[in-house]
């Protein structure tokens, strides 16, 4: 923790993430407006004292919708990463430990999935499952799980010949115990780092999918669909695009800085 707090970029990242979580959790308390309530007397208003970031084409307060959008992005981001970790880590553990043909097949499958660009694969999976947030979350999780498989497999290959692992095997410890008690805890540091970076990546994927029309559907306040609709009014009301796009940027920046700081703190030798 001390190493983390000595890193100025990591502190900025932590502050950004904390601010986002705070706004998402307390949105209904902070803002007097509802995210979906329309005000036809206040269409496409400039930022002013009543609406700090202006209003959209239906008179809805943009700042309010951004805060509720933060709730959605954080939920999708963390859920997708959790599912990806639950999918990817066990396969990586088993693949690295067992080795042989299973490992070869596993790695070829992982290579094939990773050969497809992430957004392209996520969109295709969404086309299969249908649009909507739940399906977008599943698509993002499936696309990012192979990263954790590869990461954990690499770690397991590096540590499975260590004395404590060999000792556990030699006293007859069952395979599941070696995997869960000895190997898994020693692979967690890079997984935590990757998860932090992964949340930022998941936010980008979710907003891209909503932008295209395969993620959150209107009137759900998602940063991606706010940007998509906002582009129609870019010339007369640029805040409709720039405000939610900046929110995405700050969220991703925060998680990236935090992830980098965690990497430096947990593995100083990796050096960024």
């Amino acid at each position, binding site marked *: 923790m001390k190493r983390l707090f000595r890193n100025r970029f990591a502190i900025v990242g932590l502050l950004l993430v904390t601010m986002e979580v705070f706004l998402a959790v307390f949105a209904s308390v902070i803002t007097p407006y509802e995210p979906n309530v329309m005000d036809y007397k206040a269409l496409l208003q400039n930022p002013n004292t009543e609406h700090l970031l202006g209003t959209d084409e239906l008179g809805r307060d943009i700042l309010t919708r951004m805060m509720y959008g933060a709730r959605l992005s954080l939920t999708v981001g963390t859920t997708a990463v959790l599912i990806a970790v639950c999918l990817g880590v066990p396969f990586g553990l088993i693949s690295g430990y067992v080795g042989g043909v299973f490992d070869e097949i596993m790695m070829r499958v992982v290579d094939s999935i990773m050969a497809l660009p992430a957004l*392209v694969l996520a969109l*295709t999976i*969404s086309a299969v499952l249908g649009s909507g947030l739940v399906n977008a979350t599943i698509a993002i999780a499936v696309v990012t799980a192979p990263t954790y498989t590869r990461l954990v497999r690499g770690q397991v290959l590096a540590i499975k010949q260590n004395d404590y692992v060999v000792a556990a095997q030699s006293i007859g410890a069952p395979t599941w115990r070696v995997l869960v008690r000895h190997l898994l805890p020693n692979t967690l540091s890079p997984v935590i780092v990757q998860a932090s970076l992964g949340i930022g990546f998941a936010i980008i994927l979710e907003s891209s999918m909503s*932008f*295209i029309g395969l993620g959150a559907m209107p009137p759900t306040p998602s940063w991606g669909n706010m940007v998509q609709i906002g582009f129609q009014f870019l010339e007369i009301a640029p805040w409709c*695009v720039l405000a939610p796009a*900046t929110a995405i*940027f700050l969220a*991703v920046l925060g998680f990236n800085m935090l992830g980098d700081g965690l990497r430096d703190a947990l593995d100083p030798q990796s050096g960024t």
Partner: protein
Amino acid sequence: MTQYLIKRCLSTIPVMLLTTVIVFGLMRLLPGDPILLLVEGAQTEISDETIARLRTMHGLDEPIYVQYTIWLKNMLSGDLGWSFQTNQRVWDIIRGRILPTVQIGLLGWIMAIILGIPLGLLAATSPGSWRDWLSTAGSLIGAAMPYFLIGGLLIYVVALRLRWLPASGFVSPFDNPVESLKASIMPAITLGIGLAAIVMRQTRSSFLEVLQQGYIRTARAKGLSRHKVIISHAFKNAILPVVTILGIELGALFSGAVITETIFAVPGIGRLLVDSILARDYPTIQAVVLFITLAVVVANLLVDIAYSVLDPRIRQSVSYG
């Protein structure tokens, strides 16, 4: 070298085969009957017999592994099927969309190299200085900026306010090279900034590591200028991880093209994928996804070949077995 090339080419075959299985499998999971989608919008009523005949004609009454084999054979012989939406051959549609994507992608890639490598080198040669700090901050910011923000800012400031460049569209370089370049600059910048940030960061990291090596200290001790040490000794070793990153990020460039082409209304492969997904044009979806994957695999292969040209250790390790 030839041995390395052959080995590398052969290693892509199982990956591509598995990818075709994944894409085929995903397409078969898509909701809706493809034959019913095919005859949707027909002007006369289609009888059940005709539908059954169409199903046989397209091999859809065969077992799934037979369908896959037929589909793969057709793909390999260049028959990518017919679009449900436009009734054109899918290959003809894709062929018309390649140039815009290649143009903005290549420009973005070149921009990332021109911007990222010198800035990374500048940061690495003055570690701890304000230049280094600025470079690190710049790379974090550049890597986090979504395409919507860069594209939105560029369109608003450069196209709508200053009226220097067109806000959207594509002009073929064969029709009008100048207008083509003007229309491609903003999409290329949008694509290139994120990649430039990653390249800058990797360049800084690689050069920092290489500049601490003993042979660099020896070269400086011999009295060689800093400039000569960097160009003649450090550059070739430090650039190798940067080449790797440029290859790895090619896939991300295609992902970026999907969003960038939508923002700037560029009629490329990325936009074709979006349009075909929204229209549930299944033959086009699977052909475009496969095409993109093949393009990424081939591009990675070329990068690996470039890597082996730059690093003789790669060629020699293959020769020695």
